[in-house]
């Protein structure tokens, strides 16, 4: 049995007589205790898919299950056993930290004490502020409280919708460390994110764009499946380098990547020498060209360009 399954799920929204396709024929199988990442930019369909799977939204077609329960027929049973942290902070800002947690515990007929062990390592970090109103918390603290509230009834499946969006690099790392810990408690986690670098931490990921999944696999496998030769190129002037490479007809794609450009050539022999000659003719200085291994973001952009 899969912890989460989607079979041919499609969804459209009507917007002033205009139909907007949000999801197109989504098929997905997530294993028990898996940390599964749904990776894609804003507007790619991540939230729609999460809300269909956790029974808050009806699909136009297709079926699905959570913990073996049907997402339409058994919606009540599913709601009792899943935890959900929406993208927008949705706790009660006028209640204190502790009151929020108590409220969610009582809604699920349990107590903080009963499941304290599960949330301990997360909740402890905000416990010194338990009498502060939720609305008065910093972003990182709100996030920890929201996660504690989503966990207080010991769910078997956890849905996290962009928990790290707008969060700084340090807090993002801490948050993922917490998710890794939760996995040990046999909780299945479906987490969405627009940050490609977070994919590497997941057991498996689905890359989503324009409502379609274009790849579902282990992050290491996605990287291994990347077939084109990829080069990192650096010169003294980044902006001119991008412009010159883009206007060269031997270049298939060129994207800025930190302090270098990542480039795929169109059937070019002896790439390094040929490219060096080209860049020297364009008066570039301190030219460095080296073959590199693709990351998830390289793969995403390559697949995105291919499917467009």
């Amino acid at each position, binding site marked *: 049995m899969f912890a989460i399954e989607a079979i041919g799920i499609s969804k459209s929204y009507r917007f002033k007589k205009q139909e907007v396709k949000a999801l197109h024929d989504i098929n997905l199988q997530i294993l028990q205790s898996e940390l599964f990442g749904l990776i894609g930019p804003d507007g790619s369909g991540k939230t729609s898919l999460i809300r269909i799977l956790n029974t808050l939204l009806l699909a136009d077609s297709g079926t699905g299950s959570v913990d073996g329960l049907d997402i339409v027929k058994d919606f009540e049973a599913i709601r009792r056993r899943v935890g959900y942290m929406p993208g927008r902070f949705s706790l009660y800002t006028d209640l204190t930290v502790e009151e929020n947690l108590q409220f969610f515990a009582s809604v699920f007929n349990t107590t903080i004490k009963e499941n304290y062990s599960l949330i301990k390592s997360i909740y402890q970090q905000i416990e010194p502020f338990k009498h502060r109103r939720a609305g008065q918390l910093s*972003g990182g603290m709100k996030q920890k409280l929201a996660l504690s509230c989503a966990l207080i009834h010991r769910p078997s499946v956890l849905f996290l919708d962009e928990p790290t969006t707008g969060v*700084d690099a340090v807090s993002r790392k801490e948050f993922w460390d917490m998710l890794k810990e939760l996995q040990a408690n046999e909780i299945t986690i479906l987490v969405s994110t627009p*940050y490609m670098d977070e994919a590497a931490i997941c057991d498996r990921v689905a890359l989503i764009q324009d409502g379609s999944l274009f790849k579902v696999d282990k992050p290491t496998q996605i990287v291994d499946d990347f077939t084109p030769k990829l080069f990192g190129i650096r010169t003294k002037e980044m902006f001119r380098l*991008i412009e010159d490479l883009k206007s060269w007809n031997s270049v298939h794609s060129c994207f*800025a990547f930190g302090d270098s450009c990542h480039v795929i050539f169109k059937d070019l022999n002896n790439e390094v020498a040929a490219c060096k000659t080209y860049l020297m003719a364009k008066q570039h200085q301190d030219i460095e060209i080296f073959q590199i291994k693709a990351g998830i973001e390289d793969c995403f952009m390559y697949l995105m360009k291919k499917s467009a």
Partner: protein
Amino acid sequence: MPENYLIEVNNLTKRFGAFTAVDSISFNVRQGEIFGFLGANGAGKTTAIKMLSGLLTPSSGDAKVIGFDVKTHAEKIKKNIGYMSQRFSLYEDLTVFENMRFYGGIYGLRSIEINTKAEEILNVLNLLNERNILVKSLPLGWKQKLAFSISILHNPPLVFLDEPTGGVDPITRREFWELIMEAANRGTTLFVTTHYMDEAEYCNRVSIMVDGKIEALGTPLELRQQMGVTNMEAVFLSLARKSSRSEL
């Protein structure tokens, strides 16, 4: 020859009651520079930007922005800079062109100038067919590119960009940065915040704020070498971890 600074900051401080949000920061930004202003959530970045853009009065210290004192000439600063943020940038219920006309009008451009500029922007962004559609029906990445172009509609010498690329897809995010680099190439000065550490590398210089103070300032290469690491993410993590102001 003295350098041409568009931002000069000396011991700039902002206190809210007993809490010092920005703690005596000093730095300069040169003309035509892409300056990355980094820091963890709660480090004091937003407060600093508000002071520099004339929206908040400092508690002490000085800052000059495009030659005007932030304490005495805030209105002059507001009129002459560009500003774009992730959250508030365009009116969703106005069309692409209406947004351009609105912002052009706010900054005192004449109709004929607005029309010429509008055509130019629509051409560059490949939005000629979207001229009369509502901004809310544009994909996020297009919106952000449009918002940036509108923020420099009145040719400001300096633009503040507050997390302009959050959530934008990886290809559009890079197209956005090419617009930024192009503007810098034309001499515009850009002051940018971001949570994407690869974007920090595209800046000429970056500063990293921790607990209200600027803990590091230099070119990305200098900072990487100083800390003995290979990327900006590692620079940022090692500095931001020193924060004792973990929770506000």
